[in-house]
């Protein structure tokens, strides 16, 4: 069964460093998303991406964040200068259409120290 894969599963980084979280969405999906879940809190929407551009982003997704689809298969989230409060589980998701369910990856646990 097709699935969304994320790497790495756990990333530890020093405050102020740049990190890139990687995702391979399901191959025939057109919509891509990043969500995050801070420990003990709800899953929060960060950004959606369609047709090679950001279609919507939340207040969380400030200038420190960027997304890219560098080739036909990968979808990346870059955090330019990490802060302690960026520590969270980051989930990538993809969907076939705008009104269909999103399929989530297993997540990348980001720990900023």
């Amino acid at each position: 069964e097709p699935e969304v894969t994320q790497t790495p599963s756990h990333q530890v980084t020093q405050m102020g460093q740049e990190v890139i979280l990687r995702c391979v969405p399901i191959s025939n999906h057109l919509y891509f998303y990043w969500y995050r879940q801070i420990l003990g809190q709800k899953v929060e929407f960060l950004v959606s991406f369609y047709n090679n551009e950001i279609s919507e982003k939340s207040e969380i997704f400030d200038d420190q964040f960027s997304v890219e689809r560098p080739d036909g298969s990968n979808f990346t989230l870059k955090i330019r200068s990490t802060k302690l409060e960026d520590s969270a589980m980051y989930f990538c998701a993809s969907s076939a259409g705008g009104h269909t369910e999103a399929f989530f990856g297993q997540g990348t646990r980001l720990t900023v120290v």
Partner: protein
Amino acid sequence: DQQVKQNSPSLSVQEGRISILNCDYTNSMFDYFLWYKKYPAEGPTFLISISSIKDKNEDGRFTVFLNKSAKHLSLHIVPSQPGDSAVYFCAGGYGGSQGNLIFGKGTKLSVKP
């Protein structure tokens, strides 16, 4: 501003009985709703969805009910099984091509043998 609210952080049910998970929303623009199930250290897994033009959708042991006038939906699991023990997230979706989801905080369901 919580657009999607799950007011019960936890629910405990005996195996074989019915589990009812509740969700309220404030955003009238949502045109579909989804339930996701999440195990620890895994990404959310899609369970069932409902369009805003319907009031009920059923899939095996899972039924979702939507009451638009009350801005309330519920997920019924009958009969409940120990493997259903997980955190259940309600999510609302809207907007043509965006398809991003707004999640509630989740309800932790424990089904006891």
